[in-house]
């Protein structure tokens, strides 16, 4: 059995940043396991720009952002096994993996960092009626075909869902010569970034049909067209609004799901809302010594935030390996009135160094509301927000001094309040 201090599962932006920080925090024995032939994860196919403004103060493309972290991993001589599929993790932190060179690998880790990322929600998860013809892909699959394999998956395209990948692919397919006939969104708002609606749809006159969905797919061998229809506020189809759009391709951009099959095997508790592990402010799960960061923890909008979070996970895993013991009590962060969840879910007040970032999302679009933070009955933060949308992750920073002035805090609440 191989032994490492820290094993990182996944060599995408989260895993690379966590490994780098763990090494810089004094841990020598680190192994990164990656199932693809290359490090970098999904960034390798995200060839558009807009990455890294927070981290590097410049705008990079996905592959450029990834390469900076790959270089940092190489400079630090951190061991990586590529083409390696992790099959199992136990709560005693024994990892079983397989690859073509080593065969079956059994690895004992002192700490594990989960950084497996997320997957796209497929057609089967949203129950679109109609033919099961060729020409239906998730937006990310189409992105891989075009940007890595150099093939166009279709010529006349309808995109269901207006998440960022769908918006980016609307532009990408247009540039490559396809006609994108519509982006269809079930909700009355897009879950994508506002700038992507501007630069990916409006720039190319691609219609965004809000409160619409696909109700039928026609075509025996290949997609020949889709029927779309308007929905009411309960997302029920409004009769008489049906519209047939001839097309040969339907792309789905209908959400991302953290990929936690391995976490489940290790008895890691998962949140029903995020689909990711429930963690404390050290990004440690309910299983001692198993940490999580990046999109496996909760789906992020920006890789910069993934990097920041993953540095934190790497640092905390290093402290764990060095024998840090958590002292004091654990306080739960509760949410209400439009705030759907927080990451982390628990805070150990005695542990807070300078401050902790609490990330969260809201359930619908709000205008002119306040984000309020209560320590028990005490209102400690009251921040005005002009606009809040489900597509944009929010942050509140809780400082050490807040915890020092509320030594007996038993409950923290994050909520929205009207003016």
């Amino acid at each position, binding site marked *: 059995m191989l032994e490492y201090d820290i094993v990182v599962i996944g060599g995408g932006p989260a895993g690379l940043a966590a490994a780098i920080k763990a090494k810089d925090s004094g841990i020598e024995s680190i192994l990164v396991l990656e199932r693809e032939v290359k490090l970098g994860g999904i960034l390798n196919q995200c060839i558009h*720009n807009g990455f890294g403004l927070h981290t590097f103060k410049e705008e990079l493309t996905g592959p450029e952002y990834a*390469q900076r972290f790959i270089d940092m991993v190489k400079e630090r001589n951190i061991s990586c096994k590529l083409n390696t599929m992790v099959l199992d993790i136990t709560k005693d932190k024994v990892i079983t993996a397989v690859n073509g060179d080593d065969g079956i690998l059994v690895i004992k880790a002192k700490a594990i960092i989960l950084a497996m990322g997320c997957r796209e929600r497929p057609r089967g998860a949203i129950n679109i009626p109609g033919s099961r013809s060729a020409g239906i892909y998730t937006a990310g699959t189409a992105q891989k075909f075009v940007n890595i*394999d150099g093939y166009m998956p279709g010529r006349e395209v309808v995109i269901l869902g207006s998440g960022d990948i769908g918006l980016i692919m609307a532009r990408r397919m247009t540039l*490559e010569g396809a006609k994108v006939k519509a982006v269809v969104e079930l909700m009355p708002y897009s879950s994508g970034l506002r700038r992507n609606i501007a630069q990916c749809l409006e*720039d190319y006159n691609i219609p965004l049909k809000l409160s619409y969905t696909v109700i039928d797919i026609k075509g025996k061998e290949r997609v020949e067209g889709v029927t779309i229809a308007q929905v009411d506020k309960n997302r029920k189809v409004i009769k008489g609004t049906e519209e047939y759009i001839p097309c040969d391709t339907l792309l789905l951009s209908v959400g991302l799901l953290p990929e936690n099959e391995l976490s489940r095997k290790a008895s890691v508790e998962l949140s029903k809302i995020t689909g990711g592990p429930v963690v404390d402010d050290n990004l440690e799960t309910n299983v001692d010594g198993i940490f999580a960061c990046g999109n496996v923890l909760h789906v992020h909008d920006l890789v910069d935030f993934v990097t920041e979070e993953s540095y934190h996970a790497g640092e905390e895993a290093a402290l764990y390996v060095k024998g840090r013991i958590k002292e004091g009590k654990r306080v739960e962060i509760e949410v209400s009135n439009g705030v759907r969840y927080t990451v982390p879910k628990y805070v150990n007040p005695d542990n807070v160094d300078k401050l902790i970032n609490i990330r969260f999302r809201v359930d619908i679009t709000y205008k002119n509301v306040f984000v309020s933070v209560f320590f028990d009955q005490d209102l400690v933060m009251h921040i005005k927000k002009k606009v809040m949308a489900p597509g944009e992750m929010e942050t509140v920073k809780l400082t050490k001094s807040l915890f020092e002035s509320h030594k007996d805090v038993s409950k923290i609440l994050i909520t929205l309040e009207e003016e």
Partner: protein
Amino acid sequence: MEIRQLVCIGCPVGCSLKVELQDGKVIKVTGNSCKIGEQYGTNECTNPKRIVTSTVVVEGGEERVVSVKTENDIPKGKIFDIIEELKKTKVKAPVNIGDIIIKDVLGTGVNIRATKNNRKL
């Protein structure tokens, strides 16, 4: 006076900009939270520009294409012309990140650079 409402594309925040124009000249940009927004608002109403990202075919490489970008923003009206140039272009592996793929594309003064490594197979 003309007023245009824009969403800034300078960063993921996506500020709502209000640009006031008089006789085609920008007199005021509001709603931005940094200098990028002011410049974007001004440019967008006078000479809109974009960074273009795409791919070019690679011969003998580990992947069939390599990702590329315009190293600076180029006039929005030239996007499709530049894409046509990229479609005509073939490079030989190896390609390294930062390599110039096309110098001064279509006389814009902007180079096309590789954004990924593509090793020789």
